[in-house]
């Protein structure tokens, strides 16, 4: 029998691998990063020496436990780091090994997709200026490289990461000029009943906010980003605060609106998607155990809907148990039920987070025509609106075909949410009706020489 394949070595992928190993299997683990841990528990290069407490704060215990679990099974798995799954089809993965610039096929009969998430972005004029990074990117600079994105940093947008990254920067000695949150205090108060269902996580969030305040970092809520200023790099943020325009000087900006799942591989696999009102996105459907709608495909972690790192660990283990059961292995069904119950139990908290840090509903209405939506090819909101007016396009893939939005190198990762919201606003249709941007392989750029080589081989 073919070994199972796991894509991704974050919290979900690692726990899935560990579970399969414990049942005597030797899975193939393919991961784009050089070291396991995913984004949240991303490890610094081996010659860095900061202790886990400095890198992961209150999550140090979880991070080190996950790393230890992976190190412990490393000689019992077929681990392929620095390897990008750039295409997938039934029974077959195309994997690019970056250091050797070679691509090879990996056959599979059962596949656990644990591809994680990236920042959810709603553009603001000036967001392509050097010195402007996503919130997750700001965190990666610090965690993975020991660097701050600037010397006077503003963090902006919304979501739990906003306060966490600001706290981590300030704690590491960076000058955090301000935290600008589009969510209102009223949103956070309205979300309280759900937030208190996870008192320790909620408590950490409160701690970051109060620590920032105690250390003199201004926090503004209910703001709207208007524009980022600068010629060759960002030097100020202009935002609306209580009905009037404010300007703050800075030399770097980290921004984003929570996270969006990386669903490209699930889509290429032919998994069925459904619209999630909470996440305002189409997500691959899975059963409680993590089975996707396609035989042999299992989905776990944030790549199938944002539930956070703890949930990813549980879902990874649960999906592996489902895979084992489907192969006829006897598994601990009480454990499986317990994991499902934990995952269900987390839902009120996740819904409360969406309530506390809502995606600004008015973004599309307020976005000026000149704002760049597609940073790959410089397509503006005005370009998209004009195409909608001229052609009557009312489906996002039609808009993509006509404008090239989502066809650039990022394949819609950075612009997809914005393009979909703009189209919904321009047509007056709900997001779920304008649809989701479809993807094609290669899902990330691969060297042209390699494509030619492959074509030559046919």
């Amino acid at each position, binding site marked *: 029998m073919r070994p199972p394949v796991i894509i991704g070595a974050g919290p979900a992928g690692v726990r899935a691998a560990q579970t399969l190993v414990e049942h005597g299997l030797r899975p193939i683990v393919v991961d784009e990063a050089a070291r396991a841990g995913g984004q949240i528990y991303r490890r610094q290069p081996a010659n860095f020496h*900061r202790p886990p407490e400095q890198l992961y704060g209150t999550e140090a215990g979880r991070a080190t436990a996950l790393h230890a679990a992976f190190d412990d099974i490393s000689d019992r798995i077929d681990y392929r780091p620095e390897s990008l799954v750039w295409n997938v089809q039934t029974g077959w993965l195309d994997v690019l090994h970056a250091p050797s610039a070679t691509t090879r096929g990996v056959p599979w009969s059962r596949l656990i997709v644990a591809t994680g998430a990236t920042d959810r972005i709603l553009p603001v004029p000036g967001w392509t200026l050097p010195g402007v990074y996503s919130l997750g*990117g700001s965190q990666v600079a610090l965690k993975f490289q020991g660097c701050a994105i600037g010397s006077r940093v503003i963090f902006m947008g919304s979501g739990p990461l906003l306060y966490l990254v600001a706290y981590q920067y300030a704690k590491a000695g960076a000058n955090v000029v301000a935290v600008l949150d589009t969510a209102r205090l009223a949103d956070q108060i309205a979300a309280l009943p759900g937030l208190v269902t996870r008192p320790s996580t909620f408590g950490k969030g409160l701690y970051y906010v109060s620590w920032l305040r105690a250390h003199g970092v201004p926090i503004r809520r209910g703001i709207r980003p208007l524009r980022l200023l600068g010629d060759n790099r960002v030097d100020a943020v202009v935002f609306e605060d209580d009905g009037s325009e404010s300007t703050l000087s800075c030399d770097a900006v980290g921004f984003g609106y929570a996270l969006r799942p990386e669903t490209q591989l699930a889509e290429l696999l032919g998994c069925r998607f459904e619209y999630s009102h909470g996440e305002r996105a189409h997500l691959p459907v899975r059963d409680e155990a993590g089975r996707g709608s396609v035989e042999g495909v299992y989905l776990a972690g944030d790549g199938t809907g944002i539930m956070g790192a703890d949930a990813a660990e549980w879902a990874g283990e649960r999906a592996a148990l489902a895979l084992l059961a489907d192969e006829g292995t006897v598994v601990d069904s009480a454990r499986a039920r317990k994991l499902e119950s934990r995952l269900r139990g987390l839902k009120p908290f996740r819904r409360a987070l969406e309530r506390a840090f809502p995606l600004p509903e008015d973004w599309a209405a307020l976005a000026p025509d000149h704002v760049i939506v597609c940073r790959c090819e410089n397509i503006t909101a005005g370009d998209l609106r004009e195409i909608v007016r001229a052609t009557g396009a009312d489906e996002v893939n039609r808009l993509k075909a006509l404008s090239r939005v989502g066809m650039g190198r990022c394949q819609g990762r950075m612009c997809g949410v914005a393009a979909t919201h703009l189209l919904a606003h321009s047509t007056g249709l709900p997001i779920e009706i304008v649809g989701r941007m479809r993807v094609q392989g290669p899902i990330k750029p691969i060297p042209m020489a390699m494509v030619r080589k492959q074509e030559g081989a046919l």
Partner: protein
Amino acid sequence: MMTSAFLLHRLADTDREPVDFTLDGRPLSALVGDTVLTAVLCQHDHLRRNEFSGQPRAGFCLMGACQDCWIRTSQGERVRACSTFIAPGMALLTKERTL
């Protein structure tokens, strides 16, 4: 207020071995374990110019998703700066080759 000419600021783990590389022909030094992005942006303000607007770009997501941190080498290759480690002798170019 003074703004430095480079983007990234090192806050920790600076006691690493140096790595020599060149940027637009200029000899520079980074630290072992730096990504190409870190190596360049700790002493420069962009990685390349956008192919459509000509405006400077310096990456965005730092996790291999946005594809906006590609930089050219003198060998004519492109590397994704956020996920490629700096190596001795790398010759990086932020400017378009003039024909």
